[in-house]
């Protein structure tokens, strides 16, 4: 009964989303207020019914209802309750349900937080999201229905959840990732709505910014969780492999990052509009492309879902409609001339555009590398297949990011429109020297092996950090007191700085862990010791463990640090009973400056085992940096300028004070009246109307 209820809820959601995609859009075109007002109600309806369907599936999982084919394939009575819930999105059908639920959740969020937007804009935005919903709810219902029953032969036991997914990291990874992917649908819908209405103004970019930041922050966390999971769960000690499925999550992130920066320019200076719209369409399109690649099996990947060309074909048609349609609309409606704005040679616009170019080229490189095996096969036939893997991506990606990090340091210092060059050079030269000297000195101080790549990476990370600290100092200098100054800086400013600092942290983490990790695989008998730096790992032996749905061999490894007892690690080798899969469970001591990583290999006779022992310096910084980035994104959303009360209060004041007030916040204390710009005024005035 419950599965039928869920099925019915999906059908209702499909019906409502069909109405949502038509009625408010027509209303906006015909200026019919009542039609436009249905947008919020319909959006809420779609969300409520998708939520009901999701709860129905989760409930059926908890009840071990193996008459539902999807549950029979992905659950088991012995599966712990927590993982039964996680198994809801453990395979294609359920994860697609989650995907659509999250899409409707974003729509719902827009309808709640858009009270200040003109009604025609809201109805267009929600209607565009409704169109995407129609496509994907239809796809869910007709090709991938998670509630499909097999009532004739009800299995008494389920095939169990893939053991790789029986893990905390991977339970929370898909929801975050989808929140990110699907979150870009909001910026997409805003862009399409703006194209349709012909109002690509500062107001449009301002509305888009917090939504883009939110999606981007989720995606950052989602990708970081995935890489963290790969690191500790696969027992291989790596954290990124440039696998197609990793790449398709990274591409929308890169374009989303470009979009965040481009939106800033469009909002502040009213330029690059066509480019910004293209990025907004691009970020969501790449998310959809990712969904296609993961779910069609078109590219050989380790993590792909179902290999089903027919499903792939349906998805491809959806892509054609959604992306093809929006790109066509873009080509027909985007403004051609960027306006006669004057770009200064050393302006923030220049550096943000450079940043955009590098990010988009990086994305294009990853897209090309990911699709290249197919391109090659299409041109040269299948006689000589090629592989494109980490060496290719690293060779091109690392220099691109190096260049971007260097420009970032300068960009923070530049001002809108024009920055005096001598000021730029005189303030940056000492910082650059300092970064290089410290980059050279740090490895010496830490008595690490001298490697030129380490010096370059450290210098870049220090350069980013130094410039951002200097920028904060410059902003605070003229204030009454230091604390006063710090507090006067807006949250958006702090968000930006924190995210940039996150990048510096990630650079350190990646470089130091890839250059200085000690990775040993050793044969150990009980009592054997292995020494890495100040740590001594003593293998105490292996014992049998019985888990809820697996049997395991667990090794006990005691670690002493500089002769003192330090801790005990217990890597396991599990054999899951339902599927017979063998799975390593690495045991890692996570530290701020180094991880101790142990994994258990195969027995080698005489109670001896092969044990993988890694000491990985600074590896945690990779995820710490990602966390800083995401937090920065969230901080920026919390900025005062996005708060309703503020705008309401402002709207009661006279025109000039609104403008100067807002600029003071935007520019975070670094405002000269010169940066006052007619575009900005226009945008604000429009927003108030």
């Amino acid at each position: 009964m419950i599965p039928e209820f869920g099925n019915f809820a999906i059908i209702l959601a499909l019906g409502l989303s069909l109405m949502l995609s038509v009625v408010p859009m027509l209303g906006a075109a015909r200026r019919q207020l009542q039609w436009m007002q249905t947008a919020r109600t319909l959006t809420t309806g779609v969300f409520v019914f998708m939520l009901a369907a999701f709860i129905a599936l989760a409930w059926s999982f908890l009840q071990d209802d193996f008459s539902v084919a999807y549950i029979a394939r992905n659950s088991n009575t012995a599966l712990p309750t927590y993982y039964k819930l996680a198994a809801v999105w453990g395979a294609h059908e359920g994860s697609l349900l989650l995907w659509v639920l999250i899409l409707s959740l974003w729509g719902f969020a827009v309808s709640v937080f858009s009270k200040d937007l003109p009604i025609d804009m809201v109805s267009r935005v929600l209607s565009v999201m409704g169109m995407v919903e129609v496509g994907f709810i239809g796809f869910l219902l007709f090709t991938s229905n998670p509630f499909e029953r097999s009532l004739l032969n009800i299995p008494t036991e389920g095939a169990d959840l893939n053991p790789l997914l029986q893990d905390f990291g991977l339970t929370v990874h898909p929801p975050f990732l989808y929140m990110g992917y699907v979150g870009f649908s909001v910026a997409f819908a805003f862009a399409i709505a703006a194209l349709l209405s012909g109002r690509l103004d500062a107001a449009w970019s301002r509305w888009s910014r917090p939504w883009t930041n939110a999606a981007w922050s989720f995606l950052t966390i989602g990708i970081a969780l995935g890489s963290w999971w790969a690191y500790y769960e696969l027992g291989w000690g790596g954290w990124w492999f440039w696998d197609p499925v990793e790449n398709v999550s990274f591409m929308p992130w890169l374009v989303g990052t470009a979009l965040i920066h481009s939106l800033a320019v469009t909002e502040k200076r009213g330029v690059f509009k066509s480019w910004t719209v293209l990025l907004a369409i691009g970020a969501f399109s790449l998310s959809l492309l990712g969904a296609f690649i993961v779910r069609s099996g078109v590219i050989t990947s380790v993590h792909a879902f179902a290999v089903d060309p027919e499903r792939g074909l349906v998805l491809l048609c959806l892509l054609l409609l959604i992306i093809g349609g929006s790109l066509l609309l873009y080509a027909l409606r985007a403004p051609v001339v960027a306006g006669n704005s004057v770009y200064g040679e050393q302006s923030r616009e220049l550096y943000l555009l450079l940043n955009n170019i590098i990010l988009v080229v990086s994305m294009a490189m990853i897209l090309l590398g990911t699709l290249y095996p197919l391109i090659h096969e299409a041109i040269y036939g299948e006689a000589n297949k090629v592989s494109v893997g980490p060496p290719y991506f690293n060779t091109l990606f690392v220099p691109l990011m190096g260049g971007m990090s260097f420009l970032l340091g300068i960009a923070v210092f530049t001002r809108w429109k024009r920055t005096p060059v001598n000021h730029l050079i005189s303030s940056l030269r000492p910082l650059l020297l300092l970064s290089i000297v410290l980059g050279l000195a740090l490895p010496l101080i830490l008595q690490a092996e001298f490697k030129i790549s380490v010096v370059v990476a450290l210098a870049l990370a220090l350069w980013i950090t130094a410039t951002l600290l200097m920028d904060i100092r410059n902003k605070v200098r003229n204030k009454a007191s230091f604390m006063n100054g710090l507090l006067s800086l807006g949250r958006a400013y702090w968000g930006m700085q924190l995210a940039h600092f996150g990048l510096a942290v990630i650079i350190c983490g990646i470089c130091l862990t890839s250059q200085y990790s000690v990775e040993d695989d050793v044969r150990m008998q009980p009592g054997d010791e292995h020494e890495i730096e100040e740590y001594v790992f003593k293998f105490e032996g292996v014992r049998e463990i019985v888990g809820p749905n697996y049997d395991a061999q667990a090794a006990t490894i005691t670690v002493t640090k500089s002769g003192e007892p330090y801790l005990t690690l217990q890597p396991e080798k599990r054999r899951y009973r339902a599927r017979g899969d063998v799975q390593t469970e690495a045991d890692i001591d996570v530290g701020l400056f180094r991880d101790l990583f142990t994994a258990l290999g195969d027995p080698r006779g005489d109670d001896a085992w092969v044990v993988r022992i890694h000491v990985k310096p600074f590896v945690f910084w990779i995820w710490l940096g990602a966390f800083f980035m995401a937090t920065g994104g969230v901080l920026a959303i919390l900025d005062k300028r996005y708060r309703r009360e503020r705008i309401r209060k402002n709207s009661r004041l006279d025109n000039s004070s609104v403008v100067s007030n807002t600029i003071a916040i935007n520019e975070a204390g670094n405002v000269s009246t010169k940066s006052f710009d007619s575009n900005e005024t226009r945008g604000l005035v429009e927003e108030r109307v």
Partner: protein
Amino acid sequence: MKKQLKRGCRLVKALLLLISFSLISVFPSYAAIEELEFSSKEDRERYKKLTDELRCPMCMNSNLSGSDAPIAADLREEIYSQISKGNSDAEIIDFMQARYGDFILYQPPLNKGTLLLWFGPIILLLLGMLFIRKLFARSVNNAIAALSPAEEAQLQALLDDGFINEKTNSLKKSS
């Protein structure tokens, strides 16, 4: 050895089952962990690099070091013995390429068929830079008239300072 093979075969079977039932994720369920003795640290690093950058021919998408497929183990052993014999990296890569094709190389070789792959992104970057140059050169030309005498002097001072970049150069010319 035999036992390992049997286990490997079971694993391959399990993987095939996974694919055929169109379930999720065909990950190698665990990475290969082997103890090996090398005569030098360089050899160990070469082994690591080679097994990291050569693809397991049997797997969905993993390198030799990250796979426990039987063929990956054999190829690792082959690499190990060739390193011990003193063969160079190029010789080992040629050996693998001759038997398993370009498919086994995660770093695609530079040839007619991969020109687009290697140079496409670089060309795109150059095009982007060119576009920016054009965009900003145009607007700077527009802005020239707006330079105040003070700014003009500032610019001159800069040029004298030796901090000449192409843009300021062209700026001066056009003024």
